[in-house]
């Protein structure tokens, strides 16, 4: 099927670390509060952030949170492959939930929303990949 490149197990297991510490730590209390609300919703209700390997989580987080940001600011989302469409499906549900639970999003500008989602993305990467205590994330095979 189109759109899926098979990678060598050893290459994908050696993914680079993006964050050496909690990326949320340096932000003001209001930003932390907003990110925390969104993070709590994801952690309580979603499963996509917990695929078993770190490299896979990186793709999941990027695919779903990237498309969620696009949906929240009204950008058109391109789904060129079935895998893209799968990310989009979770992004649609997440963007709807954010609009419902995080009502303050409605009062934010496009750039502010994108910036906030970038911080959220970094925080989820930190929790599930870079700061994770899960010792199986770097196993080469599934």
């Amino acid at each position, binding site marked *: *099927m*189109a*759109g*899926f490149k*098979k990678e060598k197990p050893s290459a994908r297991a050696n993914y680079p670390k993006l964050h050496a510490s*909690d990326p949320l730590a340096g932000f003001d209390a209001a930003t932390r509060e907003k990110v925390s609300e969104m993070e709590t919703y994801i*952690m*309580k*209700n979603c*499963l*996509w952030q*917990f*695929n*078993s390997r770190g490299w*896979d989580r990186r793709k999941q987080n990027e695919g779903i949170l990237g498309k969620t940001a696009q949906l929240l600011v009204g950008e058109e989302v391109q789904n060129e*492959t*079935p*895998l893209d*469409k*799968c990310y*989009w*499906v*979770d992004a*649609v*549900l997440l963007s709807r939930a954010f609009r419902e639970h995080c009502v303050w999003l409605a009062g934010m500008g496009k750039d502010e929303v994108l910036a906030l989602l970038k911080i959220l993305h970094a925080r989820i990467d*930190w*929790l*599930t990949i870079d*700061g*994770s*205590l*899960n*010792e*199986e994330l770097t196993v080469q095979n*599934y």
Partner: protein
Amino acid sequence: MPHHEFDCSKVIPERKQHAVVKGEGEDLTSCLPKGYLNTIPGSISERGCAYCGAKHVIGTPMKDVIHISHGPVGCTYDTWQTKRYISDNNNFQLKYTFATDVKEKHIVFGAESLLKQNIHEAFDAFPEIKRMTIYQTCATALIGDDINAVADEVMAERPDVDIFVCNSPGFAGPSQSGGHHKINIAWLNQKVGTVEPEITSDYVINYVGEYNIQGDQEVMQDYFKRMGIQVLSTFTGNGSYDELRGMHRAHLNVLECARSAEYICDELRARYGIPRLDIDGFGFKALGDSLRKIGLFFGIEDRAEAIIAAETARWKPELDFYAARLQGKRVCLWPGGSKLWHWANAIQEEMGVKVVSVYTKFGHQGDMEKGIARAGVGTLAIDDPNELEGQEALLRLKPDVIFTGKRPGEVAKKMRVPYLNAHAYHNGPYKGFEGWVRFARDIYNAVYSPMHQLSGIDISKDDYATDKGFVTRRMLSDATLPEADRASPLTGYTGKFDPIAALRAKTEADYPEFARKTSTQAAE
């Protein structure tokens, strides 16, 4: 790291790494026990072996198959029908189990001829069954029996049969989870792609990691069919051997139990580009969102919404009846693997209970990540607990009910903690909207059954009232209920004892007929 050390395990200091208490402000970067490691010597684990994980959990739910264990008869007995993965072919795979009955002389002289003889006998005894799965065990693995060679010989002699060899002896991993992995990959390598399935819908899924416990698969399949979705195969509950050989033609893998079956989904994604969509079939919100996601993927979300609206209107009031009476009840959520995260948030949000502990017998750290993320502050999370730790936790946490397997469940009952079977259920199915109400009903009955109060009385010694009649569960559950809830006309579960019979009675005419897309539409 907020590790928790059990008093009973102070003599096994390594165990401290396997239990944590989620504290205020803790997250997954500071609070996660070790997991999926070899059981520490001296700790009497409740785990199963890798053979059990391959055969009992994943292989045997396949319904139209002779499942034969190549090994001592005890291995087979231990994995026979103790989990209620029913099937719509009169439960063939539950009723019959097969073993080669290997004994000491076979260990000395080899057991391949014994295996071949048994295969022929089994096919002769059940001539309508043409498919077989052979499971390796510790004994025959250690003597080096070549099961594949024997299977090839038989298939050459009987061209109408097909045999799958599962090489997952008991020692092939720290727990049953090692066997899940082995059978996932073996099935993919040996069988997927060897049958070309008939495609009857524009929307085709494999339903993966679903084992039809008391009919779960049949409930979900009914929803999918009402949406016009073809379930090409179910891996493996109520699943057909030949349908599972055609998994490579699905458009989407819908994954329920990631613990036991993510491997085949991930490899189907890598080898065939079929995406993996994780879902939760438990709980009104989670199930609704799951159906929506599948609907969205195929562009038929309206069909999902129609089902969600109808089912919610029918069953939500009955769920609310139980939720009003279960508020604050303390739960130890101690299943095998995936249910610790499937249920952790949904039972708290929708039934009002409080999860005070999660544990997993064979889960990995990834399962604990999901479980701890979904549990609240103060939750005690334990990996691979031993029986003494379980008892110590029950004494400390004083739960109102425990959801676990039958072995620790019996221990809990002796400690007068009501227990619900988290693996095989009490009165399931528990999946689906109706199933979630059945689960709430079972929790309610467990918590409020007067039997538990009576069981605490030693009539030879204790003072007990002789002038009072038998209390009912309603008297117990409604005593402190707010007046509004007591006056509410809501009732508990009103469904049938067996909700699956009606689903099996349905014909194609009972499902909506949706027009197939034209080739131009499909290309778009």
